[in-house]
């Protein structure tokens, strides 16, 4: 067992691009589910429109990447408004079904082969974000970082550039969230989560606040999708499936719904756990500490996801407030 490799990989997973994508998406879901009580189970739809917004505008219409990013955000906004107008009056569980279905419709449409010239069909869109790599002040292929005893924390310049930009966005998102939820606006959201009619009787337009929350959280989702697309320099339709939303939800719950830092902590821990387990299992399998009759290399990834499922269940049952939540202030009440 190469413990140094295991530790290094585990530590790295908590801070690399994948974790950042999930953290950004989960920040949006935290605003929806944690602060407003909107059961948005279609966050991946916002990610998809963000990613395709930037992908299509740059590759098909040849716009500069910066403009593409604005268009990606605009797509998120439009989707939130389109989705919110008719559905925000629905009950929480109905809204969950509707948002899942909407995300699925988006995925089916962008992968539709007849629209291949436009959205790339099943192959997606590739190589539209070269500008982003060119803006990198570091040497893409050089290795940066350090080794600390057994820990190898070296990243290529390309990775480091993407991570830097990603974490900057996370910080920005957390700052915006922190400002929002600690304002009178955030207070109204929380009151809607607790009891819509009470907020209504106090003269608050529930629809307006829910819509604003949907838009803002959706924008974080689109940001996550765009970061996904740009850092990979590619958009693949089948990456934007239901499972993504559910994992982002797990990240948000793990950290603590209704807490500003919840998604960040949740994302880092989630990916460290996932990668730690995978690395230990992989090493154990390749050292034949686990007989291949029980598990082979391919199955390690599957076992890892089984654990995600069990983790989400156990969290919801035993610690719905997540890691840093206060039981008195949790959003999804186990007893509501």
């Amino acid at each position, binding site marked *: 067992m190469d413990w140094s490799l295991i530790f290094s990989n585990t530590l790295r997973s908590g801070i690399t691009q994948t974790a950042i994508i999930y953290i950004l998406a989960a920040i949006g879901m935290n605003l929806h589910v944690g602060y407003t009580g909107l059961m948005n*189970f279609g966050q991946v739809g916002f990610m998809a429109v963000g990613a395709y917004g930037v992908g299509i505008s740059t590759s098909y219409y040849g716009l500069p990447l910066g403009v593409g990013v604005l268009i990606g955000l605009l797509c998120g906004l439009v989707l939130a408004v389109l989705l919110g107008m008719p559905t925000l009056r629905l009950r929480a569980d109905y809204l969950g079904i509707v948002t899942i279905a909407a995300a699925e419709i988006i995925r089916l449409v962008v992968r539709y082969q007849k629209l291949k010239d436009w959205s790339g069909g*099943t192959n997606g869109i590739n190589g539209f974000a070269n500008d982003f790599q060119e803006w990198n002040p570091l040497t893409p292929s050089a290795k940066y970082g350090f080794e600390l005893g057994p820990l190898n924390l070296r990243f290529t310049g390309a990775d480091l550039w993407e991570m830097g930009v990603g974490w900057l966005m996370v910080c920005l998102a957390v700052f915006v969230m922190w400002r929002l939820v600690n304002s009178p606006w955030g207070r109204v959201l929380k009151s809607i989560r607790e009891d819509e009619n009470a907020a209504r009787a106090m003269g608050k337009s529930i629809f307006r606040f829910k819509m604003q929350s949907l838009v803002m959280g959706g924008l974080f989702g689109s940001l996550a999708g765009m970061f996904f697309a740009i850092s990979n320099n590619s958009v693949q339709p089948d990456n934007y499936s239901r499972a993504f939303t559910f994992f982002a939800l797990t990240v948000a719950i793990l950290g603590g719904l209704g807490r500003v830092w919840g998604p960040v902590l949740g994302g880092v821990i989630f990916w460290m756990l996932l990668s730690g387990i995978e690395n230990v299992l992989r090493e154990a399998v390749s050292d034949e500490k686990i007989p291949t009759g029980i598990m082979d290399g391919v199955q390690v990834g599957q076992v890892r996801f*089984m654990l995600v499922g069990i983790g*989400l*269940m156990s969290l919801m049952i035993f610690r719905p407030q997540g890691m840093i939540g206060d039981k008195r202030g949790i959003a999804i009440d*186990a007893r509501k």
Partner: protein
Amino acid sequence: MSRWPLIGIFTAAFLALATPAHSDHAASAEEPAQVVSGKLQYTVEATESGGKDDRVPVEGGVVEVLAATLSADARSVESLGEVIGTGISAADGSFQVELPAGPGDYAVRLDLESLPEGVNVLDSTKQTLPLRIADGQSKAVLFNLVLGDGGTSNVGAGDPWYERMARLAVNGLQFGLIIGMCAIGLSLIYGTTGLVNFAHSEMITLGAVLAWMFNVTYGIPLIYAALLAMVLGALAGALVDRGLWRPLRRRNTGLVAMSIVSIGFGIFMQYAILYQFGDRPSKYADYAVQRKSITFGPISLSPKEIIIMSLSATILVLVALGLRYTRLGKAMRAVSDNPDLAASTGVDVDRIITLVWALGGALVSLGAAFQGVTETVSWTMGQQLLLLVFASVTLGGLGTAFGAMAGSIFVGIAILVSTVWWPSELQTVPALFLMIVILMVRPQGLFGRRERIG
């Protein structure tokens, strides 16, 4: 009391690990190369009734992989591109084609000239098969070869539109009946407990995979395998209720929290099934091949289709009658109406809910086994069906079993008939869209009763 959910989880995990493993995992521990593989063998139909079909491997068969455009459900090829790779079958009939281009849509074509004399594809439209490859996936393809003349499938594009529509309507009815079998459980569970069960998709997959396991791994004829799957599905449903949901209800867990738990349970089950079953879609050992068909006007149905349709229709009618007239059915409806009041009249509500789970599990397993016969068995089949099941249940009115049946048949027929005008790749979009619209304007569904407010 709080240890019960964990016991439930571990029991389920144990069950997942204790069943005999499916052997065909890709062997390499590293990132698997994208490979299309399969086995060319033709079937000699058993002469004696009760005997199994004989399979003879084909050596030297030529298989080509082409770039292609597929329909959304990857069930049919819409157009073909250039040839990407070629494979030749070995002595045991197995072949492999590597795909340098990575994930995407392909078609696999069998060169009929390369086959031994007298061997043909059973259905001549199935000489070219659709193939969809996701990232890191390897897939298996299966050609149905027979000794003797093959037939042709009925879906001809040149027929008059009304004939095509009639055929599609019948196919849709079959699909709808299968969805209906899957939908009743979801609807009854929602009605009696208020839970939106996102793990229902995995109950579908589990049913189909269990039937596959009995049929292929243990060689039990499909009919009995499906019945066994039904029994195990019922057991699994009851077990999940006892081990997970009942303790959560005792803790007064909120409904939204419970749906999130069901999402977690669904993820667990999905990957547990993948772990056991592998990611290759498979066919059952029986009924893959069926040449004789019965024709009514433009519609021609194979015996298996007739059996599936009549069996599911019968079962749905029986369930409906049971709910309407039996003591147990009335108790189920009473619990749906008002669990507290039902308890007050002496109904053991917990027992009824467990029975509902068992009934749901049994029906969903049989429905899934049927779906596995018409399509293939794969670890994602439940996920693919779930939203359609939701759409059907919503259409009929959440929580009403009769509504769920009607909604399913409507959705099944509408989906297939719509392909006359609508791209089949996007055939589920209208159903999902319809569901959204219905939830918005009439959340009680088309057949549901509006509740009095206040």
